């Protein structure tokens, strides 16, 4: 077990280095000068530009820049942004609300996705199944921002059930609608995955044998069909934590939430490359962490996977 964990952790390191190097290179190794673009039409005075370059190591060779950046990551000190704020502090401020949002979305998609998926899978080919399939396709096909706007108009403005935007320091209620919007696409995937998995397990030999043993139908469904079907679903949900956090950029924009997405969007608009890369790096880290978690979850859920 420990060996397995150790090996997986070791494998994560090159992936993390590669991914951050890739992002860093794509942002900083391109034609054009990020500093010259600052300060609007007129640009900043040459002396100020030089000072900024020195401050952000932009006058160093690329690889040194990257290594200095890595040192920053390791010491949790990303430096200050162009407006003089500590980036570490910016990140610390942005994450709590996004984490809350992502977890709410995760619960929503898990509960509804698994619930509907189970019913659809148990009655594969029936009316409910056919409807669930088409509806889930609609959820996947309609972009998040359209779902967001429609909910805003209908639930927020016309019905007035939930707050239209979340704003600063949002509470549970005002995050409910954004969480639903964020969960929409993943909900559809969870539903489909559960459905397929349940339908497959229903015809599995061991399910038939369990029935032959004299187990009642509810027992067979719960202990055998659902338990086994949940393995791929739970791993999907684990990986989705990372995807939800980075996907929050759209949702947070629509509902005016000051989370990771909002901050990132803000930094992109202002051309604060260092902030963008720092935030993205943390998100990639979360994403990699979530995938690592999935591997461990998988091993915990399926006794056949034994850290080989």
């Amino acid at each position, binding site marked *: 077990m420990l*060996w*397995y964990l150790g*090996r997986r952790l070791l494998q994560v390191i090159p992936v993390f280095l590669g991914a951050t190097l890739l992002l860093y290179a794509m942002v900083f190794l391109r034609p054009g000068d990020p500093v010259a673009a600052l300060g609007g039409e007129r640009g900043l005075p040459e002396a100020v530009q030089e000072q900024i370059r020195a401050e952000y190591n932009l006058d160093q060779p690329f690889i040194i820049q990257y290594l200095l950046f890595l040192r920053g990551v390791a010491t949790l000190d990303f430096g200050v942004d162009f407006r003089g704020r500590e980036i570490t502090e910016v990140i610390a401020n942005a994450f709590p609300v996004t984490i809350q949002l992502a977890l709410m979305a995760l619960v929503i998609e898990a509960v509804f996705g698994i619930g509907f998926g189970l019913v659809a899978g148990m009655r594969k080919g029936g009316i409910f199944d056919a409807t669930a399939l088409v509806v889930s396709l609609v959820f996947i096909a309609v972009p998040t921002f359209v779902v967001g706007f429609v909910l805003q108009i209908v639930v927020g403005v016309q019905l007035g059930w939930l707050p239209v935007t979340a704003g600063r320091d949002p509470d549970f209620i005002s995050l409910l609608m954004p969480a639903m919007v964020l969960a929409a696409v993943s909900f559809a995937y969870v539903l489909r995955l559960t459905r397929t998995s349940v339908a497959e397990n229903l*015809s*599995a*030999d*061991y*399910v*038939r*044998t*369990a*029935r*032959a*043993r*004299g*187990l*009642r*139908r509810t*027992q067979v469904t719960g*202990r*055998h069909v659902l*338990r*086994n079907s949940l*393995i791929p679903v739970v791993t999907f949900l684990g990986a989705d934590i990372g995807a939800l956090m980075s996907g929050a950029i759209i949702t947070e924009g629509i509902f005016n939430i000051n989370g990771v997405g909002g901050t990132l969007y803000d930094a992109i608009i202002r051309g604060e490359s260092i902030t963008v890369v720092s935030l993205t790096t943390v998100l990639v880290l979360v994403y990699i962490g979530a995938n690592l978690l999935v591997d461990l979850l998988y091993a915990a*859920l*399926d*006794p*056949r996977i034994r*850290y*080989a």
Partner: protein
Amino acid sequence: MTTQFPVSNGDAKSENGPAVVDPNTPLLEISDLQISFTTGVGEVHAVRGANLTVYPGQNVAIVGESGSGKSTTAAAIIDLLPGTGKVTGGSIRFAGRELVGASRAEKEALRGRAIGMVPQDPMSNLNPVWRIGTQVTEALKANGFKGSKAELRTRVADVLAEAGLPDAERRARQYPHEFSGGMRQRALIGIGLASRPQLLIADEPTSALDVTVQRQILDHLGEMTRDLGTALLFITHDLGLAAERAEHLVVMFKGQIVESGPAQQILADPQHPYTKRLVASAPSLASRRIQTAHVQGRESEELHAHHLGQKPPASNEAVKVTDLTKVFQIRGARPGSSTDFTAVDDVSFTLGRGRTLALVGESGSGKSTAANMVLGLLEPTSGTVEFDGTDVSTLNPKQAFEFRRRIQPVFQNPYGSLDPMFSIFRSIEEPLKLHGVGSKKGREKRVRELLDMVSLPQSAMRRFPNELSGGQRQRIAIARALALKPEVVVLDEAVSALDVLVQAQILDLLDDLQSDLGLSYLFITHDLAVVRQIADDVVVMQNGKVVEQATTDEVFDNPRKQYTRDLLDAIPGAHLVGNVAGG
């Protein structure tokens, strides 16, 4: 005492075993049973008008090939028909009670407690995510076990111990993947009998296992059911097995019962043409006579003038394998740790020209690894493979390419051995094209010729593999192997996946081709029964090593090693044949 028919809240402790019942009242009575499946093309009648009677404590076997409806009939008894299957007519009476149309609760109460089941494939019939003990507990609890936790634990261990699993208490805490196939099947037998049913349905309970394990498990199953007085309904494709294990036989073909009656009577004097063919083809029943017939055929062959030239004395070696060894490195869980696994250990044998050499062994014996080295698909760790006197490893790439023409394989799985995207014509033409044989016209002529050779209509060449049956695909695979006129054909379990009658046809075909074309066969198999029908020489392998090596007659008549004797004993029906010969 009257029949103890289980009711949903039955309080009888399961340890009591089945109640004493009148041995002359049928336990199970199936009459005029009709079962159909709804498919895209309409209703398919899987079982038509089946009649079947089982008395308490009796062993009854249903024999048939795949698609005969034997498993469907059995599944219908406990209402576990797969997919869209439905009983559309007839009656199933168990202990005097009608089951067709019974409520779900009634059937659930019946399962496990009155009728147990042992399924076919031990690999897929235990839920991989629950411990074995949990799955036994489930069965006990569902069937009215009332006792403390400690009692339950003891009972679980008892169930597994009864089924012949040593160290049962520890085993109960393990997961299915930690069990071997044989152990899983024992666990399933234990579960099937845990609540002391009056009837146990065993659906091909051992066909997925190695022959020696198969025998042990069947013996144990027989003992247990005899001791408990449980009736056994045994489903099998193997007539020999059925005759050995059951007193009453039911032979099914295409959804209908074609013959039924006392086992020995059916074996000795089959009436229906299908049963006659089945008795004649069953490899496990192959007596000495088929061997004699084979040898006689061979002698008459040798009278043919053109074969005399090709069949010189045994010094003419097609393939000679010397001290062949293959070591695989298996990576361990820890970095850098790896263990060596010797799959083939210092193996030597010689395949004579025009002869058939059988490489026999159970799974893990290294027989297929050895065959792959002969085919040049695997590099030996040490030792040599000589083909026609030349060490294969010394060939340069061009010579190696030419060498491929002279030795060709036919594999086990008829569904995997043809590219599903290729038409039959393209599949057979491919070797010709690759080796630049003939013009386009000439190749087409050759493909037609080859189809004739394997007794398939020429029109088959426009078809695709998914439209053909297993036996037909295997014929195509043989045709493809023969396209380049090889001298040696490696048959790797080439008939193991086929039904008995088809298997017999393919064996006949192989025999004909051998005498017509002077082929040498390296025949890899786990099935000694088939060996007797086709092979001249036998090499018995176990754990990568050669155990015994002799002519087929010697091995069968006078086995020298215990392992060979075990293998021979494990052939279903072997004892029957022995009895016939001796008595």
